[in-house]
């Protein structure tokens, strides 16, 4: 039935993605020199580039783009879990020294 489904993997897709990743890496290294940004925008740009690289690596190098949908769902679920954990921790970190006593006028 589907015991040994393998995907085609081509040398050219590896090399093309490699070139893209090189480009993104050069961008990431030169960003502080080209654009003088405050901390928050710097992080935004850096993490944006990192995420783009991650999507390329996961999609092409790790063959998820052509994989059965089960793999896509699992990866998605794991990253959602991490995102939720980060969100809850962030809420705690920001409110740590703030009192939230709703019953005092």
């Amino acid at each position: 039935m589907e015991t040994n489904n393998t995907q085609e993997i081509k040398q050219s897709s590896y090399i093309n993605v490699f070139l893209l990743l090189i480009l993104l890496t050069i961008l990431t290294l030169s960003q502080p020199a080209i654009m003088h940004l405050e901390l928050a925008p710097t992080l935004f740009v850096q993490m944006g580039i990192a995420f783009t690289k991650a999507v390329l690596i996961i999609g092409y190098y790790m063959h998820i783009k052509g994989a059965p949908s089960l793999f896509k769902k699992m990866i998605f679920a794991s990253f959602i879990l991490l995102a939720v954990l980060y969100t809850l921790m962030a809420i705690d970190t920001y409110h740590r020294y703030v009192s939230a006593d709703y019953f005092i006028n």
Partner: protein
Amino acid sequence: MSNVKTTFYDKTHTVFGHHENKFLQWIFSIDHKRIAILYGVVMFVFFAIAVMVALVMRLELFSPGQDFIGPDTYNQAFTLHGVIMIFLFIIPGIPATIGNFLLPLQLGARDVSFPRINLLSWWLYILGAVIAVTSLFIGDGFADTGWTFYAPYSIKTGTNVVMALTAAFILGFASILTGINFVATIHRLRAPGMGFFKMPLMVWALYSTSWIQILATPVIGISLIMVMLERTFGIGIFDPTKGGDPVLLEHMFWIYSHPAVYLMILPAFGIASEIVPTFCRKPIFGYHAIAISSAMIAGVGYLVWGHHMYTSGESDTIALIFSALTFFVAVPTGIKFFDWIATMYKASIDFKTPMLWAVGTFVTFIIGGLTGLIVASVGVDVYLHDTYFVVAHFHYAILGGVVFLMFAGFHYWFPKVTGKMYDDTRGKRVFYIIFVGFNMLWFPMFIAGMLGMPRRYFDYLPEFEIYHKIATIGSWIFVVGLIYMVYNLYKGVKEGEPAGPNPWNATTLEWQIPSPPQLENFGTIPYVDFMPYEYKEGEPVHHMDLSVDESKGDSSHE
């Protein structure tokens, strides 16, 4: 008629090939059924040890003041009790024993996806256990931090914290491997035709549990490593003098340890979902709801860890958020309970020992669960945190929920594993003794906690003495019941009646093969296009004989 070529099972049912020596055949076996029994035997030994440690603690607490162990030893005792019970007994728990034995059988498979990794998981368990036990006898003795090893004490204390944490790390790895094995098995090795919504509910439970094992355990793994690095190199992340935050360790710890309790209870609920329809002799009410509620509990269970930290210094805002989420996570459990009770409604119930255990657990677990909601509300928890109320709550939930259902499962699948049947009347007597002892042991603690008795305290004020005395006597009755249970099951193995393939008239696939199962589990794998608990007028709809036909040797298929 058999579809199986026998060469695999003859030559390779151990990881190193065929052995003459029976002992080696067992400890190197890659047969899931043997690995389950290996786990069961070792876990039972550790359970007994931890029970004895608890008896010592309860004996010390019988009267106020020091009786025969000192305060530091008492700290080591409750740490040892917690570490053994949690990491060596209840977390491998049902998945490693009943799960390992049962999962391929319920799916219609011949083994798990990765049998050798299954064996590796057991060996890692043994390694972790050896390291933990060794730390008892070296240097300053076993860790005295409590099983929760909060910073800064766990960073400063001279006892063997690093060894205990190393042991816990290795045990966590064993747990992860079991989880990986089960998820892969459930996705890949279901019998043809068996979609996800035709799987038995035990499998749904094991599936949800395995995801928790995979995604949550690494978080405590890295937390343990960070504490070890902090102790050894002083990196500063949990040291307030370097800007570190001990509450962060609590966060990291509970991000695993809360989902861990769902890891404990979900397989137990799966057992209940198997026992109830069998002894009510009707299909379970709300199959889809129970299946999805297992997944929901696993998912939402990641979002509630902060309810262990209301008084530790987390922000007020997040405490309220966690409280709301904790109330929410109780809902899927409630759904299961209503469905089980609805299954029992107007059923012609066959009250055998497993059913008695299951129903008894409903009583004790409801107490555990509802008292959990009491401490889930922030305002109340401010008073009850770190008191005996919490201790009683989690023992009602874990001992009165997980362990009782584990016992129910042992009594239910005992004939399948051993091929014999124990004495049912004795089995019921065992239940009642344990039930009485259990409630006598833990219920007074709710009251003591509300009156202010702190937990992990070696000594106490005279006003609490009566509660401690009742609890200690209850602990003796409880242990008498446990011993009697072991005796009953032992007698069952030695002298019990042969049980046959399906003594309970159940419907799932494991009951359609001989007891005990043959090595390859099934002769012909069935095509499963039916729901798992189909009964008609009290009788299973599908009777199958799926055994391997041994007279035919190497045979062909049709």
